[in-house]
């Protein structure tokens, strides 16, 4: 009985205090950071910016039009500073849209692409040359490099998206009982060796919103926020997050608003 009580106490304590106390944990940090720094200093993601620029100005699609007439919130074709205000409400679609869902809208409306085709190709296979949207999203976001994230919630639909995003961030479901909080609710946590961003801290969430799209070393392509969210739900064993869906936009609205003030610096470099 005493053993049970001691065992229980130890376990209960372990749940209350920061894990890692008591038992020696391997601290792999020092030997890893130099590698991360070497990779981040020379980021192959840079190679996609030019591609995105070309795609933006090229006449493409059934309507043979460029994206120069696409309005990302600051007027047709105005890209400087557009990303730092996204997601935002757009009256023409009567929706709150993030950069990627707005790109889909423009590729459909201006260029005549089929929505289903774009969405199906939006996230490229690992080890490929990447998708049009990945290159475009990087190019457009890079035009806000050095600028501060400043998402507003002035429109009621922006508020609604933010509130939904917050609710979803903490919503646990599925066979792992995960919400975003389980992995991203504390500082200095890792899944295996991979550092997890502490998203309920200002610094952590700013690091996130400032560095996507990013070059993903393990995939050899540029990845976007839509992919980041999709991949989290995959690990959580949940169904597949639909590209540019409201859940993705709500979570992005929540995170970007929390990250207001972050200075954009893309492409980021992720493991």
């Amino acid at each position, binding site marked *: 009985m005493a053993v049970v009580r001691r065992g229980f106490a130890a376990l209960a304590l372990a749940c209350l205090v920061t894990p890692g106390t008591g038992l020696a944990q391997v601290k792999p940090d020092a030997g890893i950071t130099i590698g991360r720094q*070497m*990779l981040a200093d020379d980021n192959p993601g840079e190679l996609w910016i030019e591609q995105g620029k070309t795609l933006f100005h090229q006449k493409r699609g059934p309507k043979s039009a460029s994206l120069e007439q696409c309005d990302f919130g600051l007027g047709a074709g105005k890209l400087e500073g557009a990303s730092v205000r996204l997601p935002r409400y757009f009256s023409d679609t009567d929706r709150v849209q993030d950069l990627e869902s707005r790109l889909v809208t423009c590729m459909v409306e201006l260029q005549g692409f089929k929505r289903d085709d774009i969405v199906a190709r939006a996230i490229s296979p690992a080890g490929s040359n990447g998708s049009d949207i990945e290159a475009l999203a990087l190019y457009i976001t890079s035009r806000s490099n050095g600028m501060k994230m400043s998402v507003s919630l002035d429109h009621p639909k922006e508020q609604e998206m933010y509130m939904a995003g917050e609710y979803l961030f903490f919503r646990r479901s599925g066979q792992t009982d995960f919400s975003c909080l389980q992995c991203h609710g504390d500082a200095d946590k890792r899944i295996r060796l991979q550092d997890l961003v502490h998203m309920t801290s200002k610094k952590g969430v700013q690091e996130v919103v400032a560095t996507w799209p990013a070059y993903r070393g393990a995939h050899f392509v540029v990845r976007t926020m839509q992919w980041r969210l999709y991949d989290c739900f995959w690990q959580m064993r949940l169904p597949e997050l639909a590209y540019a869906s409201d859940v993705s936009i709500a979570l992005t609205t929540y995170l970007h608003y929390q990250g207001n003030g972050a200075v954009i610096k893309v492409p980021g470099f992720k493991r």
Partner: protein
Amino acid sequence: MNNMRRAFLQWAGGIAALAAAGLLRPAQAWAASWNKAGFESKVVNDVLKSLGAANPAESKEITITAPDIAENGAVVPVAVASRLANTQQISIVAEKNPFPLAATFEVAGGGEGYVSTRIKMGQTSDVWALVKADGKYYVARKEIKITVGGCG
């Protein structure tokens, strides 16, 4: 170093694609100079033989900069700096790779004894920096641990 890193963020001026023809040797000439025997060697000893580098001497004048632990074996950054006088050639060898010799760099003219690249590693292994200086071969080694990245 920080200043330098910041400076790199500004791309050096105009980058122009050149019509390659005038500057290039024909492809055949390249294939001939490529160290086929070395790159197809399956053990380090054969790599050394292919280079004429049997029994290289350990040297503290060679520095390998690389992580102790690489998160992604597909992209392991490795930089080699040689302070040996008259450094002519630097090879990077991953001992336990199926084909250990990853790359050989001939340093000529104004080239300093420094190269940096990224290699694939199948498993935890010693990485060798094999340096030819003044006609002789020297070596430094560093173990790099490879972990399987991701959650899968």
